[in-house]
Each structure stands twice: as C-alpha cells, then as structure tokens.
C-alpha cells in the first residue's frame, strides 16, 4: 500500500459522503436532468484520457487514449447539452416571476 493509494481512498470515501448529502434532497421533478448532468460530470475521466495521450507512450496506448478522449468528450458535451435542453423547458415559464429581476 502506497501513501498515494491511502490518500486516494480517504478522498474517495469523504467525497462519497459529500455526494450523498448534496443529492439527497433533489425533488423528483429534476431527477432526469440531474442524472444527465451528473453523467456529464463523470466525463471527468477526460482528464485521464488526455493525460495518457499526451505522455510519451507506446503507440497502442496512444490509440486507446485518443479513442478514450473521443468517448469522454462525447459524454461531457452531450451530457451537458441534453441537461441544458431539458432544464430550459423547466425554466421557460418563469419569465414573469420575481426571480427574473436578478
């Protein structure tokens, strides 16, 4: 067991609890956009994909890395855009609400 691994586990466990707390009170109205937005966030693996491609690596690793970048980017871009499309529909009727003055 390395220090890095232990540190990672600590971070993972604590972040999971933060996730539970943050999501717990979401109204069912927003479940679909929330799912697709958190889905987009899981596209964070793009960071890993780009790191692998950018390093000096054997060719096969590069090939995998580039495909991974494409996949992760589809996940990120597609995920945020579909969420926005859905959320725009929820927001459209709020034009004349007091909230609009902000």
């Amino acid at each position, binding site marked *: *067991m*390395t220090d*890095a*691994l232990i540190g*990672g586990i600590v971070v*993972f466990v604590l*972040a*999971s609890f933060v*996730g*539970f707390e943050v999501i*717990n009170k979401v*109204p*069912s*109205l*927003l*479940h*679909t*956009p*929330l*799912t697709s*937005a*958190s*889905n*987009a*966030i*899981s596209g*964070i*693996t*793009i960071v*890993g994909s*780009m*790191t692998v*491609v*950018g*390093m000096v690596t054997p060719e096969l*690793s590069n090939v*995998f*890395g*580039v*495909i991974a*970048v*494409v*996949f*992760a*980017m*589809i*996940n990120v*871009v*597609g995920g*945020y*855009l*579909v*969420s926005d*499309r*859905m959320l725009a529909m*929820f*927001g*459209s*009727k*709020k034009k004349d609400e007091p909230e609009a003055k902000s």
Partner: protein
Amino acid sequence: MMQHLAELAYLLAAVIFIIGLKWLSSPLRARKGNVLSAFGMLIAIVVTLLDKQIVSYGLIAIGLLIGTVLGIWMAYAVKMTAMPQMVGLLNGFGGGASLLVAAAEWYRLIQPGQTLTTGTAVTIYLSSLVGGVTIAGSVVAALKLQGWLVPDRPVLFPGRHALSIGLILTVAAMGIYLGYNPGTMWAFIVLNVASLILGVQLVIAIGGADQPVVICLLNSYSGIAAAMTGFVINNHGLIITGALVGASGIILTNIMCKAMNRSIWNVLFGGVGVVVAGSGGDKGAAMRAKGVRTITPEDTAALLGYGKLVIVVPGYGMAVAQAQHQVRELADLLHKRGVEVLYAIHPVAGRMPGHMNVLLAEANVPYEALQDLDQINPNFDRADVAIVIGANDVVNPAARHDTSSPIYGMPILDADKAQHIIVMKRSMNPGFAGIENELFYDSKTQMLFGDAKKSLLTLINEVRVLE
C-alpha cells in the same frame, strides 16, 4: 510547483461540481447549476492541457474535436421521449473511456523500463472491471429502451447466476495471475472481455419497467469508474468527482427502488418483471366477470368541465402515444373554465427517474402543476375527477391491501379516492407487471377506450362545445 497548482485547480473544479449539483436540486437555479458544472469541467480540461506531463497536443486536439462534434449532434438530435436511452448511451461512453484509459496505462507500464506497482495494478484492473460493466451494460440498456435487437422483456437463461459468479471469479483470477506474471497480454484481455460480458449479462436479465433503476445504477458505476481512473493516474480531482457521481447515482437508484417497493438486489438478481402468466387467479377471474363500465367522450367532457379539481395521472402509455401536448391543451381549456388541473407524477412514471416531468415540461405544462406522490395524494379526496392516461400499476389499490399481489407495498397514487375515475386505455390488456388492476373494476371508475391521443382530441372538442 506547477504540479501543485494543477492539483489545486482540480480541487477547484471538484468544488464547482459540488456547487453545481447543489444548484441542480432547485428548479430555479438548476439551469445555472448545469452551466456552472460545465465551467468546472472546462477548468479541469484546460489545466490538464497546461500540465507539463503533456508533450504532444495534436492527437488530443483531434480527439476533443471529434468528441465535441459527435456530442453536440447527439444532444440535439435526440427526442425527449428517447432521453432515457440517450442518457444511458452517453453514460456508456464515459465508462468506455475509463476502460480505455486503464488499458492504455497498463500497456504503457508493462513496457521495459517502466514499473507497475501492485497498487496501480489493482486500480487498473478495477477500472477495467467497472468501466467494462458500465459500457456494455449501458449499451444493452439503451438498446432495450430503444427496442432494437435486444428484447424489452428480461432475458433469462438457466445458470445465469452461475455465469455471473463465474465471470466475477474470472476477473479476480486474472487479476491475481497478472499480479504474479505482470504483462501477460492474454490474461489482461480475458479480464476485459469478462468484464464486458458481465455488463451485458447483468442488464439483459432486467425487464423494461426496471430500466429506470438500471440507468441510475449505471450512472453510479460510471462515476466509480472515473474515480478508479483517478486512482490509476493518481489524481485527486478525478477521485472526488467520480465519488460524487457514484454517490448520486446510488441515491437515485435507492429512490427508484423504494418507489417500486423492491430492493436493489431484487432488481438486479431477482429477474422480476417476468410476467407471471394469468396472475390474479380466481380473484382476477371474478373481477373480469364483474366487468368494467365504459364512458363516452361527451360524458367525460361534462364531468371534467363542471368539476373544480381534476387530477391527471399520466403514465408511459401517454408518452408512447405522444399525447402530452393534447393533455396540456385539455388542461388549458379546463383552466379557462375555472377548473384546477394538477398532475400526479409517480416516481417511476416514464422510463427514467423524472422522465414524465421532462415530457410534460416539453409540452409547456407549468412545473408547479406537476406534483409528486406525497404532494398529490392528500388532494385526491377533494378531486372531482382523476383521469388516468396510460398509467396502470401505479394506481392499483391492490398495492395497499392485497398481500398476495406482486406489487403489494408499492407506494401508489390514490386515484381511487377521487369522486370519479376516468381511465383512458387502449384495451383491457394488463400492465407491464401483468396484474389485473382493481381500480378498473371500481364502481366509481369508467373506462374510455381508444388511442390516448385520438381520445384526447375528441375530448378537447367536446369540452370546447360545453356551455
């Protein structure tokens, strides 16, 4: 120094994701929350590009460009009814990326001159496992929802549990073997293939109506896969973010399971959703003998038009008939006549959590009128009419009192408590669970048979001519 700055920037991105998710839980700020979260992602991407480890940008740029174009195209081409399979598919891409990063790192680290530590090796194998299950499972789930190639019903074959256990053991065995013989290509390939088959196997056994749970669960997996990738490349930002998504997916899965009165194990391994042929037995036969009452659109229009409160109970049948716009038109007409119209949304209405809300929002139904189970149930008492459109099991009172019913204990919408119940339905076929619905045989219930969209159009005309 640069490395430390990058670490801090990833932390900043993770914090932004947390705030974004927080905002996403309020209808007023949800859209901003999504944009904020996208901004966090931008930070993470830019920081990675600036990181000194990266020496070549050409391939990255090509990958980013292709992914962006495809992502935009997919996001705008999809219809709202097809949203569940799109989210499933996008999710699969995330899992696939994790799988590929693991493979790329593994191959790099087994080259001469590189060292593959045990810790890294374990995280790589876990990343392959979770990533493989996520991509294969998501693709199958998306195909099932779309109705392509794979049947919607659960595909069960003898020995499937043994197969699942065998696959998990295979992954473990390959991991251990690789521990002693690092760099064995065939073992790594077997590990990956077993993970992919496991993903197919887990999802193909789950029926169409349980897909909302599956989508949530796979979403959770894709987060865990991202966190594993974080372990592989030793990046805390990734670990935090992946854990967040993993946790949120688990919570939604749990909510869905509660709404169906099932445990997660039951959904995953129970093979429920298999239609128990002719269930209901004698009781069902007795109900059928009693028969149902039908109603004409004219009479329905009168009931609706002279009421004070009408509660619409939409189900997936409404979405299939693409009738949400007609529902809204009818509601608008009633509204003009001074009738209050509310919508009762069961947590599992539609094909993913909250899907019904999205479909109705697309038809410009104000979201304040969309009420969830706890909000709406006390209101059925004072409703003149509950109009059930394409919903079935979620309004079956058997869930409250019939201990022998497969849906016993499932929280339901108390449509039977309204003064009148109108059920719009294509025919008397039982719903997905294959259970006779007591509500249809209630003395206050009247059936309006026919295609939901056509019936609604007729109904709209009838309400128009009411005095």
